[in-house]
């Protein structure tokens, strides 16, 4: 070792530090490059081919054909609309409700402590398990929801089979799942707003409602922005919830009542892993990436903005 002339950046104390850093970083970096970075490029390349797992030997480079196909594929439009509908419902309604919940939980009372403990539970329950129980809740004559509605004189509704109520029913479950998580983050934000600011507002005679509008909400903007961004990105990727709740065996694409609950990721999955058209699937996944980026940027302009 002493006879080798090390390059400048590996010499001396700083050099030893660099070497140690690289040695510690190496295992993670290798896995990172192989499984995080490489697949991104591989996927891009794939989207430019017509790789079909049924006939892998005949893969050819087809350029932008897959992307052109996206524009003429009606299921792309359908799944996009469904996913947008889902995202709008789940994120907008869900975040407003989470804010309400966070404000309600901003108390040290027994009720508040109970709620803080409880609200997070739906988030950690396995999504497929919650899809199963919610499906039973929404079921026709034997589902508890309809039975309760009957009890107060309202008619049965086939929540998951009716084309108008299927997606809203799924959205409700998604909101239920995420409510506690979002509320706890918002609560942390609310509690961080310095007491002094609140108190000086109170001294100035600001009532509860005014304080909310002019102090709490504006100061919550960064946290709200964070919650909304994460929620949007996550909602666009919804898969297991919808699949387990609405799919019937024998479905190719899924999205049970007349494709009303077919989401983008479900369609990507169907193309790539059921129809085994990997090239097209890869192109669809890049389309999803692009859409998420665009929506996130729009969201940044709308909510992010000033300090």
């Amino acid at each position, binding site marked *: 070792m002493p006879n080798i002339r090390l390059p400048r950046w590996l010499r001396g104390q700083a050099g030893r530090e660099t070497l140690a850093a690289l040695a510690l970083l190496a295992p993670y970096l290798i896995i990172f490059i192989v499984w*995080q*970075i490489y*697949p991104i490029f591989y996927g891009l390349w794939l989207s430019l081919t017509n790789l079909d797992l049924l006939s892998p030997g005949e893969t050819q480079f087809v350029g932008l054909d897959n992307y052109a196909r996206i524009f003429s594929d009606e299921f792309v439009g359908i799944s996009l609309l469904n996913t947008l509908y889902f995202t709008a419902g789940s994120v907008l309604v869900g975040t407003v409700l989470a804010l309400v919940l966070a404000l309600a939980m901003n108390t040290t*009372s027994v*009720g508040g402590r109970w709620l*803080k403990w409880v609200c997070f539970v*739906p988030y950690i329950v396995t999504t497929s398990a919650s899809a199963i129980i919610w499906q039973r809740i929404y079921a026709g004559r034997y589902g508890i929801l309809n039975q309760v509605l009957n009890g107060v004189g309202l008619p049965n509704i086939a929540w998951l089979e009716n084309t108008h109520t299927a997606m809203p029913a799924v959205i409700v479950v998604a909101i239920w799942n995420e409510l506690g998580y979002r509320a706890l983050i918002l609560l942390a934000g609310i509690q961080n707003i310095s007491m002094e600011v609140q108190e000086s507002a109170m001294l100035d005679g600001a009532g509860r409602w005014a304080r909310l509008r002019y102090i709490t909400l504006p100061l919550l903007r960064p946290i709200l922005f964070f919650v909304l961004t994460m929620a949007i990105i996550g909602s666009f990727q919804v898969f*297991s919830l919808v699949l*387990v709740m609405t799919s019937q065996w024998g479905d190719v694409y899924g999205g049970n009542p007349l494709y009303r609950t077919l989401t983008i990721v479900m369609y990507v999955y169907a193309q790539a892993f059921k129809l085994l058209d990997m090239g097209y699937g890869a192109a669809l*996944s890049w389309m999803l990436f692009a859409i998420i980026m665009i929506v996130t940027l729009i969201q940044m302009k709308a909510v992010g903005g000033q300090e």
Partner: protein
Amino acid sequence: MRHRFYRQAGRWVIARKLAELIRNLILVALGILILFPIYWMVNLSFQTVDQIFSLTPVWVPLTPVLTWYERVFTIANFQRPLLNSLIVSISSTVCVLVLNMMAAYPLARLRFPFRRVLFLFIISTMMVPQQVQMIPRYLMTLRLHWMNTYHGLFVPYLGWPFGVFLLAQFLQSIPRELEDAAKIDGANYLQILLRVIVPLTKGPLVALGILEFLGNWNTFLWALIVISSDEMRTVAIEVFFLKGKTVGSAELGMVLVGAVLCTLPVLIIYLVFQRHIVGSLGNLRLKG
């Protein structure tokens, strides 16, 4: 003194106490409402077919029935998916903790060229949705003959930068003096990491470990892609398959038990570690 108390906000004490009570009751009721689906899941799992499919709901099973629990293990072999999920989740958690700790320390504390750039680059890849890498990962897994294996289930996700991000954020708040003192004592970087840094990072490490365990336990899409054999299924996708297999038949109870068993470990972990999980809330992300 009493005078001011009674006149505060212009209301009587009794009215305020009453309002507080009502507030508490509302919050408690909200909590019960939120927990209801989970209660319902457990409830139905102890009912007979006739009770599950009765026209009037059975709110509390007065004579709980264990048939479904029996059948889920004897007929559906549910112990296998449970074991699979356990093995995969634990292995993944251990690997993630080790790898991320080893990576976060240099990125947060050591000096080397391009450190900043590397860190930002790694973190920025979190913006890429998993679906982009999912298909290539599948092909890679296929070629490596890692399909239907435990490592195939979790190794591809070991590179997810969230843990590095979380730990690095925390490490930046440790005072330099501790490291300097250890260096003066002649420790090399590995020793500093193990003897000084890691003991200080226990909190975030526990939180990360739990999140990783839960994330793996709940992973659905990747498991669906990688596993095609009956014995290697994880619990999250097994409930889905159980549902498909029992559609229209009288074995529905098994699916509900499956859902309960799938949820039980998660709930236990939450009960035990609740403070840790909720503590790192700002950086949460679970796979789904």
